[in-house]
């Protein structure tokens, strides 16, 4: 940057008379150079030198201490202990950190206190190479095109364009392919709760071979309706799911909260009247905002809170959103009770669980 004195001095013009502001400000240039104490006082310089040497010495000692610490607190397989690991990490880390930081601090201090600090001005070279060089470059390019005969050989033109276009494909195709071979999004619409209509389910896990029993997570034991008491909560998975394929993927869609509330405060739509059992309701645990598990149940207010973005759902009112960024209520799982008193899912969720995706209708 040029800092030559501006040549506009003396062209001040008052703006509007009263404001007193000049039309443009002058470049004030560099302030006069102020010498440091160390520049004039050799004692002071000597002190700075000692200071910097001390910081370097601290760095040296810290580096040595780090290596010593590594030897003193062995972490190999025979002699490792929690205490050794803790001390070894601390000493080696501090040694390395102080060793590096010391070099940096000392170097900066050296530059600040002792090195010549006079300002120097170096103007930039002009960026342009000049019209003669331009002409010459264009001439070289034109000559190259002529020699390659591109204009007269259209086949080669097409061939090279094709080769260049196809060359990245061996890289791009696997990249996109590896994003996931499975583009079947219909599985978002069903969960492990879906009844086996053909009755092929294990009767231990499916009521009448068809309807999946509710089970405690993680114990995988069936749940009696009588065991779900007021003010309690049960975290639920489909019975037998842990032994099935794709357990975690299926569990991620199928987890359910089971809560009993006083039937007198339960608001139920007429079409959902048989989805609950004596005040026991089951809702998907997957937040409709971005899919975190909504499981922070406050039993006095009957609200469940999502820990990620504080969406809050009212269990007594069809798990509608009462606060937060979620748009839709938690999907409800219709439940029934078998003759022995165990809870089972009478149907799958009637809408996809979890957050919105590109083919969801609402």
């Amino acid at each position, binding site marked *: 940057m040029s800092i030559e004195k501006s040549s506009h001095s003396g062209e001040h013009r008052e703006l509007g008379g009263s404001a007193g502001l000049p039309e443009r400000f002058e470049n004030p240039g560099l302030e006069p150079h102020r010498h440091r104490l160390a520049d004039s006082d050799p004692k002071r310089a000597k002190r700075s030198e000692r200071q910097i040497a001390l910081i370097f010495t601290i760095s040296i000692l810290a580096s040595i201490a780090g290596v010593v610490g590594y030897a003193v607190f062995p972490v190999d397989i025979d002699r490792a202990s929690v205490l050794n690991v803790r001390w070894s990490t601390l000493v080696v880390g501090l040694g390395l950190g102080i060793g590096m930081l010391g070099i940096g601090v000392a170097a900066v201090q050296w530059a600040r206190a002792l090195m010549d600090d006079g300002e120097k001005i170096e103007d930039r070279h002009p960026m342009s190479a000049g019209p003669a060089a331009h002409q010459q470059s264009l001439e070289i390019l034109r000559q190259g095109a002529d020699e390659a005969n591109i204009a007269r050989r259209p086949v080669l033109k097409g061939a090279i364009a094709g080769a260049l276009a196809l060359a990245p494909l061996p890289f791009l195709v696997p990249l996109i392919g590896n994003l996931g071979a499975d583009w079947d999004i219909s599985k978002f619409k069903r969960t492990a709760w879906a009844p086996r209509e053909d009755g092929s389910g294990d009767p231990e896990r499916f009521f009448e071979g068809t309807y999946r029993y509710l089970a405690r997570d993680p114990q995988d034991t069936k749940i009696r309706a009588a*065991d779900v008491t007021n003010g*309690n909560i049960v975290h639920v998975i489909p019975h037998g799911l842990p032994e099935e394929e794709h357990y975690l993927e299926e569990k991620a869609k199928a987890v359910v909260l089971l809560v009993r509330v006083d039937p007198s405060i339960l608001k139920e739509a007429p079409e959902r009247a048989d989805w609950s059992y004596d005040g026991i309701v089951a809702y998907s645990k997957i937040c409709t905002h971005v899919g975190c598990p909504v499981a922070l149940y406050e*039993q006095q207010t009957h609200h469940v809170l999502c820990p990620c973005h504080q969406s809050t759902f009212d269990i007594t009112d069809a798990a509608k959103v009462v606060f937060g960024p979620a748009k839709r209520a938690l999907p409800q799982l219709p439940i029934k009770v078998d003759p022995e008193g165990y809870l089972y899912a009478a149907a799958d969720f009637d809408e996809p669980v979890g957050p919105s995706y590109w083919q969801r209708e609402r």
Partner: protein
Amino acid sequence: MSALARSRRHRFAPMLLLAFALLVVGGAYTALAPSSAQADALDDADAGKGEALFIANCATCHGPGAVGTDLAPSLVGVGPAAVHFQVTTGRMPMQASGPQAEAKPPQFSEDEALDMAAYIATLGPGPAIPTEEQVDPALGSAPNGMLLFRVNCAMCHNAVGAGGALTEGKYAPSLMNSSPTIIYEAMLTGPQSMPGFNDATLTPDEKRDIIAFLMEQRGTNPGGLSLGSLGPVSEGVWVFVVGLGALIGCAVWIGSRSS
């Protein structure tokens, strides 16, 4: 033998036999039935003293006879475990109304709390105070406890039990300093916002496993500043305030002139 044979058709004989049978069954039950925890913990408790303490300290809000008022719920049937939990952690008596009753230095001794628990137990049956054996971490399985804790507790109380925020000023407290008995009673009774976990949801053995896990992981700091083990929140605050602050300080120092 013949006297006994002769009197077996006496009209009092069936009644005598019934009385004898009842005596045998009752005696056998008393001898063989597992003694309830309530009996253990409340053996020396004095329900009369407890009632006096209740009237002097609790009845203002919970009403005479603990039937509840507009201010506070009925305590009939909450059980000795709930009383022991609330009183020995200092949550009750409440100092001021707020989003939730916070733990504070307890106002009553353990014995006084047990007296009150005995009084509340006379009003109606409820969850009992666990025995020493029921909460002994050495008898529980910490790995199983971790599995159960992650599903049932960690969402509110944090993965290591450091606690966390709920809505409108409520919070799940830290479990780092809670005694095994207190943790057990909280699971059993579900105090305040916390849902309960009855013995069908988490069996007594499973509750003990959770306690074993919590006790097991208390002393396992691998070094460094734990910053309350609160995860990204406290670590983020540390990085933004201390880390960026230090970097800004360095930049200012490097750019400043030496005197």
